[in-house]
């Protein structure tokens, strides 16, 4: 089994209305050092070992469904998990 952690964020070029609001809130809490906030999504997939190439599979899943390439970027980490 593998545990795959997928991070999806809005592209740098795309304004993030939620991030902008949260930055304002942090500033009002006096954390004026905060220059930027980007809000994204974190997904954890548990994937069984199979004949298919894991990297290729995860990339496909990210591009087809988990992220929208028009406005979002993704990255992922793969961990080998011990089956219980």
């Amino acid at each position, binding site marked *: 089994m593998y545990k795959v952690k997928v991070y999806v964020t809005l592209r740098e070029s*795309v304004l*993030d*209305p*939620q991030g902008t*609001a949260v930055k304002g809130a942090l500033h009002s809490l006096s954390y004026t050092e905060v220059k930027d906030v980007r809000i994204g999504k974190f997904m954890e997939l548990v994937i069984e070992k199979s004949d298919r190439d894991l990297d290729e599979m995860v990339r496909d899943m990210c591009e087809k*469904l988990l992220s*929208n390439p*028009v406005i979002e970027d993704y990255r992922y980490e793969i961990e080998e998990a011990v089956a219980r």
Partner: protein
Amino acid sequence: MKFAVIVFPGSNCDVDMYHAVADELGEEVEYVWHDEENLDRFDAILLPGGFSYGDYLRSGAIARFSKVMAAVKQAAEAGKPVLGVCNGFQILLEAGLLPGAMRRNQGLKFICRPVQLVVENNETMFTSAYDKGEVITIPIAHGEGNYYCDEQTLKRLVENRQIVFRYHGENPNGSLAEIAGIVNERGNVLGMMPHPERAVDALLGSADGLKLFRSIVNYWRETHVVTA
């Protein structure tokens, strides 16, 4: 002329859409569940608003993989009118039938109120009954209608006159170039955030949406009914 109203789990403007076509327009219309694979018997396809699949992951992201979407693509390729309103627009974007994507509204609020639109292009099968530059009142009801596309795409949209409706006076959600509705290059797929199906009776605030449905019928008659 026969319309299909596609119903996904979580659609909630399907009844309004049906009412607009059946009662106000007086044309044939049928609900079609999302697992249907054949839309050949229909002349036009309507994707209503709502929260298909709970808007999980992203609005429209899961609906685009439902069985009926392959048939919607076929209908679009065959040149039939395909109209997506609100969540229907979001589904068309996710499905790649229209370019771009939706972000959260700039003010982060869900906005539900009538807005003014300008008819930018009245030479489409959806807008021929409007005058060019006509200002109309149509309600919006969305939290993610902040349209985005890259510069190249925007340039193409402008050059091909694919921007059909723009917000007039104020931009409620932060949409790029005040975009409220766009068509594909061929001009037979329209996506728009405002709800024309909720503006078909003056008693209920506005009847400005009716011309959109009339335009579709006029187009269909011109291309399908042989006059003696």
